């Protein structure tokens, strides 16, 4: 395999400044390990889509290098892209063609696709996303969810080594989201590397093994999802009817940032053994219903890293 060095996607100092002078991506060093489900996170406008467009050879980087499957892009796009399936910024379809004819058209555009197996591969891709029944309908009659599936089907026309999915669950209902997630897991278990951009943190947390976070054109962090979440400290949570008293005792015990909210008191856990903290509460006559450490979510990690909420346009 020629992409051994540096992963399936590997960028160094990748930068894009658009002609208006706007710096969309700023010195991006990204490494996507082979076989991972890689979550690419960031608020809208943080440079995710520009990065994906540079990786797919649609946008020329201003400076820096990008390698996909071991080849430099955009120089070797012709060799790389047949091995990559992509869904970029939502599906785009020919409304006057049927779903099936849309896929036939996209497959005909790929010089590496064998025309003899075209119909069979299109049928298989339609089946995989559950669109066989609607294959003969004109694409303009499709719902947003169906269009999204058809876009996914176009990415699955050939066996791919890398799938680049930009916001694949946009516009889908919860059932559709679940189906896409299970499809992603299924593809990943076949050994396909999946590069998944999203602004939905729980989506990344549910399916991704690795993640990178972008904000304002820069890479904030990247690594295994478990490590990223572990990076943010959890919160000590005490459930009690005696909230006021509990808050006082917790402060005495060295718990920082104590917040009392009805029967729930939370705070940053102290260095000392939590068992002693609990014992102190009980000694002070606080009736404790629940006591425990709440694990940090990726969202906590994100807020800690970027200092901003998630749906803020950058």
């Amino acid at each position, binding site marked *: 395999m020629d992409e051994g060095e540096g992963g399936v996607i590997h960028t160094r100092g990748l930068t894009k400044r658009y002609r208006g002078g706007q710096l969309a991506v700023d010195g991006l060093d990204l490494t996507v390990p082979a076989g991972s489900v890689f979550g690419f996170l960031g608020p809208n406008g943080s440079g995710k889509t520009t990065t994906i467009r540079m990786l797919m050879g649609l946008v020329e980087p201003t400076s820096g290098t990008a390698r996909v499957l071991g080849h430099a892009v955009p120089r070797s796009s*012709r060799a790389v892209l047949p091995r990559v399936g*992509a869904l970029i910024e939502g599906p*785009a379809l*020919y409304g006057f063609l049927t779903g099936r004819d849309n896929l036939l*058209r996209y497959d*005909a*555009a*790929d010089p*590496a696709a064998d025309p003899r197996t075209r119909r069979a591969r299109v049928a298989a891709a339609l089946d995989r996303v559950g669109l066989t029944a609607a294959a003969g309908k004109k694409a303009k009659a499709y719902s947003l969810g169906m269009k999204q599936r058809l876009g996914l089907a176009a990415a699955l026309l050939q066996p791919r080594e890398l799938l680049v999915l930009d916001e694949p669950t946009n516009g889908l209902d919860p059932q559709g989201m679940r189906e896409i997630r299970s499809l992603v897991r299924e593809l990943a278990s076949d050994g396909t590397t999946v590069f998944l951009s999203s602004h939905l943190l729980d989506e990344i947390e549910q399916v991704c093994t690795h993640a990178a976070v972008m904000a304002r054109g820069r890479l904030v962090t990247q690594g295994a999802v478990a490590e990223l979440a572990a990076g943010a400290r959890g919160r000590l949570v005490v459930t009690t009817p005696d909230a006021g008293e509990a808050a006082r005792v917790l402060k005495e015990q060295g718990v920082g940032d104590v917040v009392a909210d009805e029967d729930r008191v939370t705070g940053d856990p102290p260095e000392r053994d939590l068992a002693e903290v609990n014992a102190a509460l009980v000694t002070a006559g606080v009736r404790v219903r629940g006591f425990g450490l709440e694990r940090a979510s990726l969202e906590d990690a994100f807020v800690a890293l970027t200092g901003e909420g998630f749906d803020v346009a950058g």
Partner: protein
Amino acid sequence: MSRAEAAVRAPSPLWTLGLLRSELAITFRRWRTLALLGVLAAVPVLVGVAVRIETGGGSSPGHGGGGDGPAFITQITNNGLFLVFTALAATLPFFLPMAVGVIAGDAIAGEANAGTLRYLLVAPAGRTRLLLAKYAATMAFCLVATLVVAVSALAVGALLFPLGDLTTISGTRIGFAEGLGRALLIALVVAASLTGLAALGLFVSTLTNSGIAAMATTVGLLITVQILDQIPQLHAVQPYLFSHHWLSFADLMREPVYWDGLLKNLQLQALYAAVFGSAAWARFTAKDITA
């Protein structure tokens, strides 16, 4: 996967043909294309019916009524074949190039507008290959559009007027079969006359992400050029306007054929195709696809 990789290493030698076929299917299956062709097919019907009504069937048209209509119009009543020449002369200044401007202007910009361009390029269609397929499909449309006019005119001419030997502009008589041959040749020359505009439209199409804007610009350029070609003070630049030699196809009806204007026309079209084809290529291969 090894299969996929082998396929990548050895793309079919006919690598553009699959895309070209798809491009042709896309072009000619659109309702819009069919409507354009329908309008073009209706022009000879209108001309034929008008001439037929005007002359009351059979008799020669009065010289006081018509005067200077499109070329050959006075001869239609003697021979229906002349309706082919008349219809081409009537549609070439505006209807045919307008249709070509719509198709060429929409070629790249329309795909960008719909977002399908990015998926074609990541397929990967290849920018040069896609542009070539688009230009080939546009030229195919030029040919089909011209043939639609010619065939419609021939059918209407055969229905409404007698057919037979015909008199050339030079006064000699040629047989009906040879006349048909000349008609086909004229149709091919008319189609070739549109290739320069097709290249210009394709170039405009690479400049914008709006199909409508590209179509309007191309048709606007066509109108501008047609107007400039009418202003006597501009005679110095007129030989370089793509429409300047368009009506030279009538020289094919001389005996012997007068090739001067025809060759100038074809050379000018080749020049436009080379210049604007290169410009379209330079623009499209370096463009950031953000739509």
